[in-house]
């Protein structure tokens, strides 16, 4: 697509959003971002890139209680290339006393912030400096709710069998949710050709006005490891995570998590994550560090953002220390976003 066409498409976004019917929804955003990367290897040059991204989310009330939803992304790189991504395209409707979903949908599970063992349907990277719009998973799902319980059954990537990447595997997943006062409880079961049986549990509990604790555990009958550019079958595995969030009246917030992921490469199995953030009305400043004791790696990030009405300005610098800095030593990102 030529840049002129993209510019025209971007210009039309606010007009389209303004035309949305009250009963339906149309929203979107325009983002311009620039990145600078400092290489960790002397024979690889530093690099930079910039791009513009337009996202559009539409929701349409169709006959027979059906809801159609689509999320599209249009990314234009500084080298002139353009990429279109359909992040979500779903049909949702009540069915047989429950609620049915067909299509491509983002479905995130688990209670963690930096690491999420029970996120068996959607593998979401929570610490990405440049969080791409999540891309949904093709699925058929049926859910049932009362005021304190929920049951979700998902057939993801139907007909795919075992694919080249785990994310694209066909799998049947089941989640049970129960609210018990100040505690949320989850049970998850997943069946797939690659991993066999996976079973896990999680909880999140509010202890007082500012303190919440959470934890999750996943057991895998088998798993694959990525070696020499391909997946190789390995034996049993498990993932365990524990953490807390703490917030004060002055809007200072801390997230801390520790986890062990036996399915990761040995030096990256044990992790400690700490994030502190201070919020002043429209401004937020945060700092976080991910420490991997076995490899003596520390990935630290400082971010700031300013949000005013539909405008969001953000800037981040991430430093890769120890072994994690082998390829990239430092990464800086600045962005401006306008929502409609």
């Amino acid at each position, binding site marked *: 697509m030529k840049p002129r066409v993209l510019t025209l498409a971007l210009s039309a976004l606010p007009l389209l*959003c303004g035309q949305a019917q009250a*009963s339906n*929804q149309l*929203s979107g*955003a325009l983002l311009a971002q620039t990145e600078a990367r400092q290489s960790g290897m002397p024979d690889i040059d530093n690099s930079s890139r910039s791009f513009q991204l337009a996202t559009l989310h539409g929701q349409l009330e169709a006959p027979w*209680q*059906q*809801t159609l*939803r689509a999320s599209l992304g249009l990314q234009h790189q500084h080298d002139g290339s353009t990429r279109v991504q359909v992040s979500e395209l*779903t049909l*949702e*409707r*009540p069915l047989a006393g429950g*609620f049915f*979903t067909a299509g491509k*949908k*983002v*479905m*995130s*599970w*688990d*209670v963690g912030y930096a690491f999420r063992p029970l996120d068996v349907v*959607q593998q*979401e990277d929570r610490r990405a400096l440049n*969080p791409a*719009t*999540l891309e949904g998973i093709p699925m058929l799902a049926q*859910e049932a*709710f*009362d*005021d304190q319980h*929920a049951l*979700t059954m998902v057939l993801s990537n139907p007909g795919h069998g075992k694919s080249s990447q785990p994310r694209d595997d066909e799998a049947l997943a089941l989640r049970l*949710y129960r*609210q018990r*006062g*100040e505690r*949320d409880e989850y049970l998850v079961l997943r069946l797939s050709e690659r991993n066999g049986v996976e079973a896990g549990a999680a909880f*999140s*509990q*509010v202890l*007082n*006005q*500012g303190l*919440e604790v*959470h934890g999750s555990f996943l057991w895998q009958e088998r798993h694959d490891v990525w070696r020499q550019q391909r997946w190789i079958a390995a034996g049993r595995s498990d993932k365990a995570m524990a953490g807390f*969030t703490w*917030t*004060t*009246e002055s*809007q200072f*917030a801390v997230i801390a998590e520790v986890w062990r992921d036996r399915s990761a490469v040995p030096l990256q199995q044990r992790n400690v994550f700490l994030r502190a953030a201070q*919020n002043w009305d429209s401004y937020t400043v945060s700092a976080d560090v991910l420490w991997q004791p076995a490899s003596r790696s520390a990935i630290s990030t400082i971010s700031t953002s300013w*949000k005013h*009405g*539909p*405008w*969001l300005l953000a800037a981040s610098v991430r430093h890769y220390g120890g072994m994690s800095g082998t390829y990239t030593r430092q990464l800086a990102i600045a962005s401006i*976003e306008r*929502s409609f």
Partner: protein
Amino acid sequence: MSKFQTGAAALLFSVCALAQGADLATILKKADAYRLPDSSAQIETLVQTYKRGEPDKEKRYQVLIRPGGKSLILFQSPGEIGQKVLMSGDDFWMLLPGSARPMRITPLQKLLGDAATGDIATMTWSGDYQGTIQGQCSYAGQACLELELTATRKSLSYQRVVLQVAASDYRPLHADLYAATGRRLKQASYLVEQRDGRPSVTRITLRDEVQTARETVITTVSSKPRQFGDELFNAMYLSRNDLKL
């Protein structure tokens, strides 16, 4: 004082206290009815913030309420569309735009965003506060009653409220809102107008006592009675999109 006199005095005191308690409950219910005439309703709210008298921010919310202290706030402003906050008594969850994961949050995390405004839109004095009638007063030339109220739940943004209601019909006129520390956080004044053939609070003006140059105006754009299914107030339902408004 004889035993009889002591007993009679105690009985009289108890009867008076009981009568005052009953009166307070009636007054609070009537005051609530001006703000939330329907126990299960869909309310469209406009929140405008002013700094030093100049417009600063403007945000829109759809608020769904049902009995039992349950409410669901749907953010409608650009950049926030898709954000949802679910409140069920002292329990809170949030869904951020772009993420399909409902998160359990603490009462103080709720204050990080604009959801605290939801407290003002959805809390009921009769359901969330208890207290006493302090006496008669005057507000803007109107005879009023002053009520001293204490929150019955720790998660409420304002733990103490001094509420002034019109002596004639108990419509809310003014309130001082205090934190648990005793610090006055905001002053609220209420505008009552005729809507759908009945007097209703159509606007609440909040003057910030901490950031004194700031004022927030909460306008009830529309309010209609509606019945909702149980699923709407289940945290796991937040990630679904088939919510009919």
